């Protein structure tokens, strides 16, 4: 007799293997892992944010930023989705706190299972604009992010072109994303 594998188990297994490669530096695996996680986060948050539907995608994105910035705190003995959902739950509580706890008192009215929720057809989109937010960063961070994140240069190429050391560039990119996450949190 074989034990039945649910679609959820398959999802976890796939995510776990993607995440392992992503942590080791595989960019394509990281991109795919984040996409899987985004979907998981969206369904997790959707049923808990029925009173704030317009802000669902904002919080998904805030959580993705936190996941990226904190991926060093991932503990390999914990399932990736559990780790990610703990971050999402923290960000949700943080949002409630900023909203003065009003929403925390609202139990979801119709607590549908995640798969029964209406599917969103158009591409998920938050209310903020990345370009606008990037313009608020200090120049050095903007510059490093433009080269590495937007033009897609490798750290070595960017370092060669600008004469800035590789480690300094890495620090600027990390600080920039951290600043970006703060801006996202503040405007949320």
């Amino acid at each position, binding site marked *: 007799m074989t034990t039945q594998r649910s679609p959820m188990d398959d999802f976890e297994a796939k995510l776990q293997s993607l995440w392992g490669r992503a942590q080791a530096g595989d960019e394509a695996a990281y*991109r795919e892992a984040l*996409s899987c996680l985004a979907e998981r986060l969206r369904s997790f948050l959707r049923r808990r944010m029925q009173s704030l539907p317009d802000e669902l995608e904002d919080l998904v994105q805030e959580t993705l930023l936190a996941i990226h910035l904190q*991926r060093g705190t991932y503990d390999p003995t914990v399932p990736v989705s559990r780790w990610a959902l703990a*971050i999402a739950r923290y960000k949700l509580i943080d949002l409630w706190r900023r909203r003065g706890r009003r929403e925390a008192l609202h139990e979801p009215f119709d607590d549908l299972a995640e798969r029964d929720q209406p599917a969103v057809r158009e591409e*998920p989109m938050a209310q903020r604009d990345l370009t606008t937010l990037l313009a608020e960063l200090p120049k050095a961070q903007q510059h490093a992010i433009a080269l590495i994140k937007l033009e897609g240069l490798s750290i070595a190429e960017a370092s060669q072109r600008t004469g800035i050391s590789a480690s300094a560039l890495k620090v600027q990119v990390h600080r920039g994303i951290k600043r970006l996450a703060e801006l996202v949190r503040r405007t949320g």
Partner: protein
Amino acid sequence: MKTNELIDFLATGAGPAPRWVEARRLLPMMALGVVASAAGALAIFGPIPAEIFATPAPWIKFAYAGGLAAAAAWLAARLGRPVPRTRAPLRALLLVLMAMGLLALGALLVTPAGERPAFVLGHSWSRCPVNVLALSLPALAGALWALRGLAPTRPRAAGLAAGLLAGALGALGYSLACTELSPAFVAVWYSLGIALAGILGAALGPWALRW
């Protein structure tokens, strides 16, 4: 902004995940904290006479405060992760406390009954916990700052761990200025000072550890 754009943005040139983030954030702050508490103890209370180092007293204090600091740092590092596994560091913390408790109890039992109150109270029981707490404040600020850069999802517990860590570092510095000789004194009054720092950390946690 579309979520797919953000994902692309994050993944491009992301490189491998940073390693040892907990240690890299906590260790420098612990070093600063212990330097601040030692400097504060020497400047405010003055160093203990060199002869005392021939007795076991300062070494017991160093071992107790150092052991507690290590266990509390381990606990704080674990609480800096979104799904914290705290059992092992809690056990270590308990082990250090029990070792100190047993040592104090043993020393108390071999002390004649009439001298026991003095053995526990020493000459500075009322000042010791406050001094330990005061000396732990720089380390507390540092430990909270370090944890804030991680991802603590239980801010009160993480604040408590940061407070215990800071208290232990404060006690480590105070050991350089404290002339009490009895292990029972250390077990009671040092522990009280460290616990006060822990309570302060737990109170500050929800406010200081937002990320």
